[in-house]
């Protein structure tokens, strides 16, 4: 085991990433393994993310772990407890794995420094969401048979997306060609230094793309003066059937959810034949089973 925690893809080797994907594959169809019997997995969620939390919970239970959910509402966090104290308390209760979701980038790294258990990052601010990237890679590999050499277009609010960052790291490590596509206001500073090709038009991004990954555009971004309207965004960067027609026929369409239907993706695309969006959710459980098993052992 080359990694104790899974805090991000940036520090994960390509070999370990592939090992996670292979382990996930070996777990297909598994409903009740015993590999984590007697282990305690704490889902420490400081921000709401029902899909990710549920996915980790099911993953832990399918491996027979005792899974406890701690969310910021209804815990001492709302009474002003610091992250340090929360972490120390969980550590005192001997949590074997702590799955952390936090709105502050780097919070899982902080938790990892102050607990003996293994920490899995379930999304930290605008930094990383490693298990999402791993489940995306798994889904891509399943459909395309490989990752190396593919062209993956990631379109949407890149600046505020931990999914875009983790995917750029992972897909690059696995030999894919990654494009980031958004208006300049939704791209982070010096985006090209992440090893991605920057596209400022959807046409450019979709040309020859094997995989199209759409990201959610939050309505708050209007207030931040990043886009003039969701209408204009949808017309220029939204994935409609018409836009999709410019991509290769066998391209697959992905979305980490939750979707803003009619903004970044049209119903006809989200529910159409190219969409693998629900498969991503299914795969998520497998990949998280693999990750929990690997960090807990």
């Amino acid at each position, binding site marked *: 085991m080359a990694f104790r925690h899974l805090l991000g893809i940036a520090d994960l080797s390509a070999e370990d990433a592939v090992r996670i994907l292979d382990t996930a594959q070996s777990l297909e169809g598994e409903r009740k393994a015993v590999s984590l019997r007697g282990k305690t997995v704490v889902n420490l969620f400081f921000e709401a993310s029902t899909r990710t939390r549920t996915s980790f919970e099911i993953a832990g239970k399918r491996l027979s772990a005792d899974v406890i959910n701690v969310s910021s509402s209804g815990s001492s966090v709302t009474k002003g407890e*610091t992250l*340090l104290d929360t972490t120390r308390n969980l550590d005192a209760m001997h949590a074997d794995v702590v799955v952390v979701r936090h709105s502050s980038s780097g919070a899982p790294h902080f938790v990892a420094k102050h607990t003996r258990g293994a920490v899995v990052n379930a999304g930290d601010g605008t930094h990383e969401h490693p298990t999402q990237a791993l489940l995306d890679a798994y889904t891509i590999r399943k459909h395309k048979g490989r990752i190396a050499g593919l062209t993956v277009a990631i379109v949407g609010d890149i600046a505020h997306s931990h999914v875009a960052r983790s995917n750029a790291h992972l897909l690059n490590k696995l030999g894919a060609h990654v494009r980031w596509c958004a208006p300049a206001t939704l791209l982070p500073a010096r985006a090209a230094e992440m090893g991605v090709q920057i596209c400022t038009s959807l046409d450019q991004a979709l040309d020859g793309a094997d995989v199209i990954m759409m990201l959610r555009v939050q309505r708050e971004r209007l207030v931040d003066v990043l886009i003039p309207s969701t209408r204009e965004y949808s017309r220029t960067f939204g994935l409609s059937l018409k836009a999709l027609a410019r991509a290769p026929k066998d391209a697959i369409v992905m979305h980490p959810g939750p979707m803003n239907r009619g903004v970044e993706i049209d119903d006809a695309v989200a529910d159409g034949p190219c969409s693998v969006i629900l498969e991503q959710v299914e795969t998520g459980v497998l990949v998280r089973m693999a990750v929990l098993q690997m960090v807990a052992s």
Partner: protein
Amino acid sequence: MSVLFRDVRLLDPATSRDERVDVLIERGKIARAGVGAGQGLVHGAPGTDGEPLQVIEGNGRWLCPGFVDLHAHLREPGEEHKEDVQSGLLAAVAGGFVDVCVMPNTKPVNDTRAITEMLVGRAKDIGLARLHPIGAITKGLEGKELTEVSDLREAGARALSDDGHCVTNSMVMRRALQYARTFDVPVIQHCEDHALTAGADMHEGAVSTRLGLRGWPREAEDVIVARDLVLAEGAGARYHVAHLSTRGAARMVEEGKQRGIRVTAEVTPHHLLLTDENVLGYDTACKVNPPLREAEDVAALRRALATGVIDAIATDHAPHALGDKHCEFSAARPGMIGLELCLAVLLDLVRKGEVPLFRLLSALTVGPAKIVGLDAPRVAEGARADLVLIDPDASWVIERATLRSKSTNTPFLGRTVQGAIDVTMVHGRIVHNRKTGKELP
């Protein structure tokens, strides 16, 4: 008290005098400074003024004027758990500082004569380094109404600043410059367009993108410096850029000086030594405001210091409690301590040949003193004996336990440095002695 520094390397930035001499201190002043000035004088024997003489064998160590810090946060009143005037001044003299200007962002804010007088009085009672309050530009640092500048100045305020907050309203800033000009008080600006830095945690660049932290772009500093230079020129006022951090601001200050604008600037040790890459790993000790920039900024700042575009080195000593730093990055308070470590961390720049020794010493002494109107620091016969004795070769490790400050928030912990403040003397009195920890050689 009479003190003889025997066989020291006298370094006087005001005159560029660099000579191995004896320096005799009597009645708070430098009585003699020259080759053989201490000949025949013996430790414990009555000195020329009859008082028992202390002899400090210099063995070629450096004797310079005491340092002046334009920018410290001593947290009193209001946050004495982080620092107070006593602990702050102890840290100051341990770092060779004899004059410390303190920022007004205390609780309550120093925007009145009462707080200013209280601070001056506290420092006088303590009797280590001298303390010079900086009054707020606007009441409550709110950027709206001007403070009573004449009253503040009479009470001892040497300059005005809303440090931590930028006076972003152009009308208020223009009036502040005009009004301060009336009383010849410099206005120190914390240059940050807050609209461009809302929620920002670090410098905006490739590292902030990688770490997913909200960026504080260079433009936020540069637009304020650009605007303020225009306003300062129009008002004919003395304008000072606090903790200058960008290559663009350095260029604009240089151009402003060439055009005859009365502009000065300071830089912190950390902006001269560290970059945004030091934040990697989410090291909250490296969270400062303005943020650590990039290698090209650091290079520009070093050049600006070396050429005199930057007038002063200021510590921006910002003590914080453990809990303020021992948390997730976005919740961490910005700032690091600096008074005790300033010279020790900076001497490396001299050894590497990036900044001439006299430029470094000037920026710690005559440069800042001039900005706030203090007597020019010098090592010369007849001058007040405010001195530091530096061992440039002493190698030591920066450790939590040996810091005098109440707070230990610095990324330099664990670093081995070369160069130490052995003795600090204020008005002829030894207020710090590294070797003994007491007021004795």
